Structures are given as C-alpha cells and as structure tokens.
C-alpha cells in the first residue's frame, strides 16, 4: 500500500482521502484559537535554574528514584526506574547535580505535592553515553520494545500511557490498523501541528518503526482539516511510504483515541476495553518522534514540544522544552506576567486542568500551557437548573445522557449513575460546553466517578476489616476456650487432690509419714534420755544411728506424701468417681422410669387421656436409663483396668537406697493396698448393682455379671500383688534387720517406750477433752504400737532366723 496521493501536488482544499472515513456521534465546534501560537517556529526554551521531575509523569505506578541529593547526573542518565509493568523510567534532562528528592507540587488538579527529583543544571549539557540502533530493522522487536520502554516514552498526547505497553502484542495477535493521531482537536494547542510542519520526516521515521513492530495491515494517519500546512508537510514526507494520510473534518473531540478510531476505521472500542481488542493500536505523532529518536539515536525522552498560548503571553508559540522545566520559567520566557494571568491551564481548554502554582513542572504529557486573562477565560457563571433541554446528549460523543448522569451524580445516586454508564464518560467536556444552564457537568461526573472509586476502595477496606475482626474474634474465642480448658483441668486436678486426701492412699501415706516422724522423735528422746542418764557410749552411739535412720525414714515418708499430693490421685479414683456418679444417675433414671411406668399404667387403667403421652415419656426415660447404664458399663470396664495397672506400674524395688527403702516399701504397699481396696470396693458395688439389676429384671444382667467377675478377678490380682509385696518387704526387713540384732533390740525397746509415752499423752488429752488432738494422738499411738509390734516381731524373726537367742 503506497501513499497513493502525490500529496505535494494536491492543494489541501481538494485533498482526496485515499479511503473513506467514518463519523462519530456528537461533537462540538469550539473556536479554534490556534493561530496565536502558529506564528513562530518551534523555539528552544531556556535552561531553567532547576528541573523538577515528578516520579509519576506517566499513567501507572510512580518510578523509583535511583539518585539522591548531591549526586551528579549526566544528560540522558537514568535517574529513576520503572516500578512494575505499567511504569516508566525517568532520565536526567540535562547534566547537573541532584538537589533533592522530595515533595513538590506536581501536574495534578488537586494541587497536591508528590515526590520529585530536583536537578540543578550545570549548563554543560554533558551527555551520558548513548547507544543508537541504526540497524534497527535487524533487531528483534522485543528488543526494540524494551528500548522504547527504557527510553521512558509515555503517550505524548495527554494520558501518558507507557508506549511500550501498547507495543507488546500477544502471541499471534494481528493488528489491522495502526492509527496515528495527528488530529489535535483541542482548541489552542498547536504542538502537533508545528511538529508536523517542521519535523514531518522524523514523524514518518517513527511511524515506520511502529509499523515494523506492529506489522499492521494498514497505517492511518488522521489529521484535522484545519492544519493545511501540516497536511502538506506530512504528505510530502509520507510519499512512497505505505501509509494513508486521512484528513478529517474539524470537530471536537475527534482526537480522542476512541473517537479517532471510530472516525478512521468505523470500529468501536468495547467499553472498558482497549483498542487492541478490535485490532487497532493508536499512537500520537509526538510519541512516534520520541520512538524514532530513542531507536535511531539512543536518546531517552527528556524534552517535548509544548504550546505556550493564551492572551497573557506576549510571545505565544511552541517551544521545545526540557521535562521538569517549571511553568514559571516558560511564563518568564514568553512574556506572561502574573498580573495578567487569570487562569493557568496545563493542557487544552476542554480537558486540561488549571494548576494552582506556576512552579509545577512540564512533564511528558504537557502539550500546552494556556495563560489566559480573566477576560479570555472568565470565571464560570453560577449553575442554573437543568432544563433537560438535551443539548448535552446531542453532543456527547459517547452517546450518554449527560442530563441523567448529572441528575444522579448530583443526588449521589451512584448506582443509577453507573447504570447510565457514568464510567464510559470520557470527560471530553462537550456537554458542559453547550449546556445553556452553565452546569459544570464534567465536575459532577468527576466527583461521582471519584466517589464510585472511593466506594469500591472503602468496600474493600470494610471487607478486609470485617475479615480481620472476625479472625480476631475467632482467635480470642480460641484463646478463651483454651484458657477455660486449662482452668478446668486445674480445677479438676485440685478437686481430685481434695477427693484423694481423705482417700485411702494419701491418708495412709500421711499416717505413715506421721508415724515415722513420731518414731524418730521417740528415738531422739530415748537418745537424749540415754545421754543424760549417762549410759555407756556404745548405747548412745547406737541410739544416735537409730535416730538418724528413723529420721531418714520419716523424710522418705514425707517425700512420699508430697509425691502423692503432686501426682494427684491415681486414675482409678476418677474412674471410681465417675462410675459412682453414673451409677447414681442410672439409679435415678431407672427409678424415674419405673415411676413413669407406674404413672402410665395408672393412667391407662383410669383411661386418662394422657396415658399414651405418659407411656412415651416412660419410654424416653427408659432409653435414658439404658443409655446411662451403657455408659456405666463402659466406665466400669475402664476403671478397674487402670486401677489394676496403676500399682503394677511401680513395683520396682530400690534396694540400693537403703535410707529410703522403708519409706519406699511402705509407699508401695499402701498403693497396692489402695488398689486392692478400690478393686474390692468396685467389685462389691458391681455385685450390688448386679443384684439390683437382677431384682429389677434389667436386660443387661449378663453384662453386669461379667463385670462383677472381672472386678473380682482384678481385686484378687491386686491382693496377690499386695501379698507378694508384703512378702518382699518382710524379706527385706529380715535382710536388713538380720545384720544388726542389737539395733533391733533397741528399736523394739524404744518403740515400746514410745507407745507408752503416747499412751500417757493420750490420757492427758482425754482428760483435757481436746478431741482433735485425741484423734491425732490415737493415730500416733497406733502407729507407734504397730512400730513396736513390728520391731518386736522383726526382732523375734531375726532371732528365730538367725538362730540367735536373747541372753
């Protein structure tokens, strides 16, 4: 496809488009005001004192600064890198020193500040090393795209979308039309016009590179018919190239991407979609030049053409200006003084935004600065009521109903506004331009769109908060449950201790400990008596050793008590408790059942109405009783087993520890005794319940019988184990005592004495009537008695066994 028109020879007025163009709906014809700035050729703006480079000059994530204050940078050096897929690097527009990286007012209607890199130029314009790609046709497209990205090229038309992103094609994606936007439909702006007039070859060279990258079936360059000179220049430059220059009628907003695509190809970009979805890619001519320079000369994007216009400028025109140049510097350069300026606009009069301060810098997207007096762009008159005249709907290029959007935006009915496709509004301002009631429609839409976005963000935040709140609640509940469980366990343990205290095991241990200590005390007393009486030193020594032995014994007993306390009662206790409890429940349940049956029978006999109800009640009760019985069975089955194993688990004898042997033995014996008692008791209980069951005619007699047998067996076993231990203990005593007959003799004698002393004490206590004391003394006396008996018997057996006879 060649440029079929020998453009240079055809006067623009009769220019024949090489292919038919379409139309888009709506649109307006505002006064052009373009002549003011086309009178002068493109000039170079002077180097300002400082350059301010916002980290977000483009659409997408802000760049990440690579330099910090004090760094020296060269012209074209990368000073910030892209941050993510939709982001771009920034390059130093000239050589100099980084003064600061910090917040400055930036190009934004809010007047907010944002992070910027501030560079003080040194005036030397020393370039960093550049890497031109003169043989770019031999390069891989992906490499060229990377180069374009690294050159920091954003769409120069207005939105500033990273150019490379639009050049990244999906695999197998076919681009039908490459649309080059040279329309420049906004009034006042002439940057593209002048670019075409003066640098058409560069544009064409850039378009060729885009063609190489995208391989489109057709390349369509759209230019508005109010730029005859530019059309001429472009046609001349495009001669022999495979692209169509299409002249479109002047109508705002034909330069809008979607509108231009519709105008040149007749296709509509789907709502919320991108042009590539309909096989179209659209680039601005400024972008084409930047791409050309980035590839051919390796130059990053560091300057752009900007129109300076508006009646406050004495020398309006177009300038090639370094990015980061503060607007103030341009105002000074083209003779606009502050007093004359009423409104300072960055961009065009239809879609640009008023800036708050002239220290805002020129960025990659700044195509125009309008410094207008209050006379040229007067303050808007107050809003009048919407008369629903529909003028706005007539001009809306997106075919919206602006009056409805206005209504819903005003009443903040965001749902309705979205239903009327608020989000499809391109904010072109055509509606507000024609509105007879001077309603700032676009501001309403911008506000409503912001609200919609805010609502979405808030919703997300609320959802997150809800999630976190719920997670926290769950966590707290879990913690509380755990705490509660721990507390319960503690409570249980202490209860068991308490229940164990009066129980056989601990009580016996305590008693043993008490006995031991009283024996020790008696021994000490005897020793003392012997000493005072001046007994022979041998005896005294003997008594002392005895006392020591007894002390050790007492200590051992105490330790045993402590252990028992710490270890809590054996599991058997719990089992027993549970069984007892269950038993009680079973008893209650079955008696309730019986009562219910009786009631039911009585009711039936009496022919009462509620007989069946009573019967069903009885049935329920029966079920309950059965269930409880089953539980009881289970509990019983498990309780004796533990009871039996508990003592079996600690039968080890520690013969070596002579000092604690007695205590150990005692402890073991007591434990076994307890186990036996327990088993015995359970057996008795089981038999009792068996009996009861037999009496009641319950249906689980067999099971109960079995349980009883089992328990009997357990009890027997425990008894056996106990007997074995007793035997063992006896043997031990014999072994121990056999070695020292004298000791045994003394012990026996002392035990007798102690018993006597205790008996005397008892008498005293009885006389004083101290009941508690009496009990204690009784127990102590009994212990002493047993001790005495034991001592006597061991003496006897020792004598017997060893064949020793008392003299």
């Amino acid at each position, binding site marked *: 496809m060649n440029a079929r028109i020998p453009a240079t020879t055809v006067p623009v007025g009769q220019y024949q488009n090489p292919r038919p163009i379409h139309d888009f709906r709506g649109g*307006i014809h*505002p006064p052009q005001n373009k002549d003011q700035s086309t009178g002068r050729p493109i000039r170079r703006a002077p180097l300002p004192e400082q350059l301010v480079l916002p980290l977000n000059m483009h659409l997408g994530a802000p760049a990440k600064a690579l330099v910090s204050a004090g760094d020296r940078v060269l012209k074209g050096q990368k000073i910030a890198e892209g941050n993510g897929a939709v982001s771009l690097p920034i390059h130093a527009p000239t050589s100099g020193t980084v003064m600061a990286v910090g917040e400055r007012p930036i190009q934004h*209607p809010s*007047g907010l500040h944002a992070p910027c890199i501030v560079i003080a130029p040194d005036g030397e314009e020393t370039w960093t090393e550049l890497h031109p790609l003169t043989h770019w046709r031999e390069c891989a497209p992906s490499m060229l795209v990377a180069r374009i990205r690294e050159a920091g090229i954003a769409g120069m038309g207005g939105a500033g979308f990273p150019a490379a992103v639009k050049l990244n094609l999906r695999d197998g994606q076919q681009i039908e039309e490459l649309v080059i936007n040279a329309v420049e439909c906004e*009034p006042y702006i002439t940057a593209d016009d002048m670019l075409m007039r003066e640098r058409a070859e560069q544009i064409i060279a850039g378009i060729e590179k885009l063609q190489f990258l995208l391989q489109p079936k057709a390349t369509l360059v759209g230019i508005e018919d109010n730029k005859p000179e530019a059309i001429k220049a472009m046609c001349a430059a495009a001669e022999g190239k495979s692209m169509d220059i299409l002249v479109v009628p002047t109508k705002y907003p034909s330069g809008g991407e*979607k509108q231009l695509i*519709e105008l040149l190809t007749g296709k*509509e970009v789907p*709502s919320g*979609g991108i042009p590539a979805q309909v096989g179209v890619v659209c680039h601005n001519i400024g972008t084409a030049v930047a791409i050309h320079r980035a590839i051919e000369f390796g130059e990053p994007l560091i300057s752009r053409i900007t129109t300076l216009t508006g009646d406050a400028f004495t020398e309006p025109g177009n300038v090639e200006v370094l990015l980061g140049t503060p607007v103030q510097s341009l105002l000074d350069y083209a003779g606009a003084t502050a007093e004359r*300026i*009423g*409104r300072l*606009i960055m961009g065009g*009069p*239809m*879609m*640009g*935004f*008023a*800036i*708050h301060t002239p220290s805002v810098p020129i960025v990659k997207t700044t195509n125009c600065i*309008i410094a*207008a007096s*209050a006379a040229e*762009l007067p*303050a*808007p*008159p*107050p809003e*009048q*009521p919407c*008369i*629903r*005249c*529909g003028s706005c*709907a*007539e001009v809306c*290029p*997106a*075919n*919206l*109903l602006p*009056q*409805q959007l206005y209504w819903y935006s005003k009443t903040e009915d965001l*749902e309705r506004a979205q*239903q009327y*496709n608020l989000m*499809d509004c391109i*904010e072109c*301002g055509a509606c*507000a*331009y*024609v509105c*007879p*009631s*001077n309603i*700032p429609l*676009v*501001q309403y839409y911008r506000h409503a769109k912001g609200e919609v976005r805010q609502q979405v963000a808030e919703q997300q935040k609320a959802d997150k908060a809800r999630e976190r709140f719920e997670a926290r609640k769950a966590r707290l509940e879990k913690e509380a449950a755990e705490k509660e469980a721990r507390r319960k366990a503690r409570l249980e343990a202490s209860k068991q201790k308490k229940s164990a205290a009066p129980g056989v095991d601990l009580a016996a241990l305590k008693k043993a400990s008490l006995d031991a200590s009283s024996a020790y005390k008696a021994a000490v007393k005897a020793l003392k008596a012997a000493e005072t009486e001046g007994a022979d030193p041998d005896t005294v020594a003997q008594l002392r050793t005895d006392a020591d032995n007894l002390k050790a014994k007492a200590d051992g007993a105490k330790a045993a008590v402590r252990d028992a306390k710490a270890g809590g009662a054996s599991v058997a206790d719990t089992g027993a408790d549970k069984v007892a409890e269950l038993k009680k429940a079973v008893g209650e349940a079955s008696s309730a059942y019986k009562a219910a049956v009786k009631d039911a029978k009585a009711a039936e006999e009496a022919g009462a109405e509620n007989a069946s109800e009573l019967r069903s009640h009885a049935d329920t009760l029966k079920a309950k009783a059965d269930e409880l019985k089953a539980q009881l069975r289970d509990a019983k089955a498990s309780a004796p087993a533990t009871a039996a194993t508990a003592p079996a688990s600690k039968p080890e004898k520690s013969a070596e520890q002579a000092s604690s042997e007695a205590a150990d033995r005692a402890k073991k014996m007591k434990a076994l005794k307890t186990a036996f008692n327990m088993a015995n008791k359970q057996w008795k209980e089981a038999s009792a319940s068996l009996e009861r069951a037999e009496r009641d005619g319950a249906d689980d007699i067999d099971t109960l019988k079995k349980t009883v047998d089992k328990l009997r067996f357990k009890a027997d076993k425990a008894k056996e184990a106990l007997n074995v231990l007793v035997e063992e203990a006896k043997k031990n005593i014999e072994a121990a005592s056999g070695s020292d007959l004298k000791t045994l003799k003394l012990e026996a004698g002392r035990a007798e004495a102690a018993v006597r002393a205790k008996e005397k004490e008892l008498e005293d206590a009885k006389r004083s009537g101290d009941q508690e004391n009496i009990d204690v003394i009784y127990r102590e006396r009994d212990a002493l008695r047993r001790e005495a008996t034991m001592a006597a018997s061991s003496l006897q057996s020792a004598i017997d066994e060893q064949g020793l006879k008392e003299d």
Partner: protein
Amino acid sequence: MAFITVTSPHTTQTGNHTGAFMRQVLYATVPGLAVLTWLFGFGTLINLLWAIPVALASEALVLKARGRDVRFFLADYSAVVTAVLLALAIPPTAPWWLTLVGVSFSIVVAKQIYGGLGMNPFNPAMVGYVLLLISFPVEMTRWIAPHEAPSLMESVQLFLGSTSADAFTGATPLDTFRTWAGDAEKLASQAILNGKLAGQGWDWVNLAFLVGGLYLVWRKIITWHIPVGVLAGLALTATPFWLYDPVRYGTPVFHLFSGAAMLGAFFIATDPVSAATSRLGRLIYGFLIGVLVWVIRSHGGYPDAMAFAVLLMNLSAPMIDYYTQPRTYGHKAAHRGASR
C-alpha cells in the same frame, strides 16, 4: 498568585444561559402571535401582556417565600415562556381574571411547588390550561370567528369583562367538524371548514407556528424528534380512519392545520423539562401525543386535545426514558429498562 482552578472545560459556548435559550422560544412565537392578532384581534396580545407580569410576580413571590435568589431565577425567563404559551392557548376573548387564575396556578402549583424550573413533572402552561378548561368551559371555548376580529377598544373591553363576548364568538373548525361529523351535506356547507388547507384562518395560525417551530429547530433549541413525532402520530392515525370514513373523520391535513396542532407540536410538547429525554424516547413521546390528540379530538368530550395529550404523556415520560436509554459507545446493547 491566585488562579481560578475550576474543572474543565475552561471555555463554554458564548451566551450559554437558560434565559437566552428561553428567549429564543419567545422569538419563535412571534409569527403565530402576529397571525392570531390579525385574525382574531388584539385579545391574545392583551392577555399575553397581562400574563407576563402575573407570571413574574407569582414566581417572585414563591421564590421569596422559598428563600431563593429571586433575580437569579427570574432571569431564566422560564416564567415568561409559560405565561406566553398559556396566553397563546386560551381564547382571545378571555377576561383578565381567567388569565390571572391560569397563569398563577401554572407558576405556583404546577411549577414552584414541585421545586421550580427543571423539577416539574408536568408542563405548567398546560396544567393551567386544563384547570381553566375544566373550571370555566364556557369562557375557554368561546373563539372568535376569523376575520371578524373585534377592534382594539372592543378587545380591551372584553379583557376587562365589560362587554359580553357573545357578539364575536363563532365556532372553531374543530368544533364545527365535531358537531356535523357524519353529515356530508352540512359539512360541505360550513364556511369555516373551507380554508385553504384546513379550517378557515386556522391554517394560517398553524402555518405561522410551524414557521416559528422550524426556527427553533434551526437554532437547535429543540430537536426535530418531538414535533415530527407529534405530527406523524396525528397524521398517521388520522389517515386510515379518514380513508375508511371521510365523512365522519377529518383529513390528516385538516388535523395537522387545525386547532393547536403546530403550537402543541413545536412549543408545548417540546417543553424539555417534562418531556422524554433520549432521541428515541422523544420520538415515541411525540408520536403518542399525536395519537392521543387524534383520539380525543375524534372521540373525546373536548374539541381540542393538545393539553390533555401532553399531560398524559408527561406522566409516562419517565417510563419512556427508562426504556429508551441510548446505546452507549462501546456497549453492545443499550441498558433498556435495566433495573437495579
């Protein structure tokens, strides 16, 4: 430095003002007013001149009561337009109090009570008209026979109510046709029905309003959709019935150029506030008004029907809007009647 930082667009069409918009409507009524005066005397003009101050005064009063900026809102000329349209619609023989009642009711009840300009669901002028028609049917149906216009003096007397209107009145073509419909002989003998296009004189009135209406379309004050809809609705309904029984039903041309057809199509049905808003919606809205006009004219109890038809359709305008949202750029289909 303090700059204006309002939102874009920073420039608007010169002369954007609701007042300017409304004034165009006023200019467009001039031809119609002129013809009415030529045919029926100064009655309409006198009533119109009386209606304007009444409208402004009642609007100012209510605005003041509602605590609004009176000057700001009076400058939108909407009250004047209402007054003028009502004055054009009522008979030239109307006495001053009739106008007073009609206009003040239009402004106070039909417009301001709903919240003022832009908020009224019904066309205020037509609400006033219907009120008068129902309350004072005699005064409201007394038209003057064309070319037998009273003199200026007589018109003033009529306006002041010091003269009986009976001396001047004659039936309108629509009235006459209603009376003799079905009787071919009688119809043929009625002079008033034998105008150039339709009823005598009334064809001129309608032509004049057509001219004014075309001016409005040209100035982009209104779009063609509603008037075309109304006229098409009227003509397309009239045609088959006329073909079926020309004695009982009037010709489409007769319908288009009698009574308030053109005034209604271009000036009344197009009141933007109470009309449908999308293009398709406006076509439908207009068309149904046309149909209703024919139905009421042919079968209703009143000779002309514009006011009733417009009010009825005002009622359905929101629903029409709801179902006629245009297809937005980039969307596959319009959100027609999409609910929440």
